[in-house]
């Protein structure tokens, strides 16, 4: 990879794009990248605001994840389709407009058919517009890749985010409330008292930290496993798209 490519990530000439066609973006790689290697919540630490706010219950975290999944997939598809039309200098407003369109759709559907959910997710649905996950993927992936990989990327990033939310939501709901998806668990309330702590903001940060730590451990093990291979610390082989992952700059120096 040349340095010019690392710097100019937003726009590609047709020739360059042709070269990228033969890149290593296999479907399996893209999927794993979204779910694990660059899990938006637990690896890139993006979208922390809704993450901490909605994970007080597994249900609300699941639906929040679903909403993000839908918006992410749809907006990446459209952005990828329009990547040759959108002028480079005006790309951010264009991305936001496209994302906002889908967020509006989601919000209207939720408020029309699931008023209770609308109540519990509240402001965090409209706030998906400014969620950095969406902008980051639009900027680093969808605006440079073809439609199908972009859809897959949006989907897998959404799945990764949903899984992270669900993990945190489950931990917090089980420990903090003694329920799971609003179903009361046997032991809690009688033998063990649920811990209020996990429903409060400090508990959110606590669980978030523990989850990040666990994923980090998992990645470290995986890394040791594949250290003889060509993969870099962030699981990508010096790809131009893992801008948000600072680890790339580290391994870049070592390659040269």
């Amino acid at each position, binding site marked *: 990879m040349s340095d010019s490519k690392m710097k100019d990530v937003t726009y590609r000439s047709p020739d360059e794009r042709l070269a990228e066609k033969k890149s290593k973006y296999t479907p399996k790689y893209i999927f794993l990248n979204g779910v694990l290697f660059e899990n938006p919540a637990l690896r890139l630490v993006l979208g922390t605001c809704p993450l901490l706010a909605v994970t007080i219950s597994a249900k609300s975290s699941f639906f929040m994840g679903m909403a993000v999944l839908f918006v992410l997939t749809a907006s990446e598809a459209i952005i990828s389709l329009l990547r040759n039309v959108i002028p480079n200098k005006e790309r951010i407003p264009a991305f936001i407009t496209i994302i906002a369109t889908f967020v509006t759709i989601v919000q209207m559907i939720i408020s029309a058919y699931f008023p209770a959910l609308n109540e519990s997710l509240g402001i965090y649905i409209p706030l998906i517009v400014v969620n950095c996950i969406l902008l980051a993927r639009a900027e680093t992936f969808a605006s440079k890749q073809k439609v199908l990989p972009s859809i897959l990327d949006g989907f897998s990033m959404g799945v990764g985010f949903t899984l992270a939310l669900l993990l945190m939501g489950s931990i917090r709901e089980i420990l903090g409330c003694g329920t799971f998806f609003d179903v009361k668990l046997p032991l809690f309330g009688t033998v*063990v*008292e649920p*811990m*209020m*702590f*996990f429903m*409060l903001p*400090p*508990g959110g940060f606590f669980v978030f930290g523990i989850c990040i730590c666990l994923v980090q451990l998992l990645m470290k093990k995986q890394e040791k496993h594949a250290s003889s291979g060509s993969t870099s610390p962030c699981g990508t082989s010096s790809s131009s798209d893992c801008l948000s992952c600072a680890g790339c700059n580290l391994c870049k120096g070592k390659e040269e």
Partner: protein
Amino acid sequence: MKLQVSNSPHVRDKATTQSIMLDVIIALLPATFAGWYFFGIRAVLVTLLSVVSCIGFEYLSRRIMKRNNTISDLSAVVTGLLLAMNLPVSIPLYMVVIGACFAIVVVKQMFGGIGNNFVNPAIAARIFLVIAFPKAMTSWTIRAGEWFSLRSVDAVSSATPLTLVHDGNAPSMWDLFIGNKAGCIGEVCILALLIGALYLLIRHVIRPWIPVAYIGTFLILVFFFGHVNVFNFPGGDFTVLTTWTDLFYECCYMLLSGGLVLGAFFMATDYVTSPLTVKGKLLFGFGCGVLTFLIRYYGNMSEGVSFSIILMNILTPHIDDWTMGKPFGEVKENAKA
């Protein structure tokens, strides 16, 4: 292990981590025994469980993290003892284990073990338990075992001790001093705590700066700005409380109730989480006193002492930066380094 050697003169001393911790344990014992005496067999159980689980978690977490084991330095025993002293006797036993786990694994070992914890593990665990189980942690019992309806002796924002006195409900001053009152296991007997503190002071394990600054600041604030204070004296808006005796009583009550003495002598003086210089220690104590006063009088939680110490623990590195002396004879450019 990284050894740092500074310029001479060096002080040779026989003190080791183990010996200091042993001194702290000895100093804590009178208050522990007093707690056992006042709260009965269950207090013994809570204390032993807390100590044993702290040691167990220390051993296990060091083992799992593949570090050398440090249980022999007795710091886990001190943490366990302090934690138990900060718990009400009626607490369910599994909560004690959860608290010990939080203190040792999360607060101490995850940050690197002894010497690297950024706040006092016992206080952090107490605050964790209070937030996690607010009901169990604020149900105080007295000696007879009957449930005491007084919310917490630390909580005075709603019903003041003085109004309780006028209703004839509050314990007498002597009861407060000797420990015949509701509260945590280790904080009730002020006399025993003072004996332990005296032992630590005589053995030079702790210096008096933090406790003196802490308690002094707090009492001055109570004297001038408490519910009964010298400014609305005599008469004023206070229709019930208008005598010097009330003022004196409020000061004494504030001093003797809650965990103030335990916190000031045994927890605020923790080496790892308190400043190094005398100026820093005074500042630390002053901050603790102000925060305790504010939380006790204006906060809505009853954790004046715990929260103020933990907040000042977090500020400790900055206090150290601020108050560290300049090396004598140093060239000016290097003086601040």
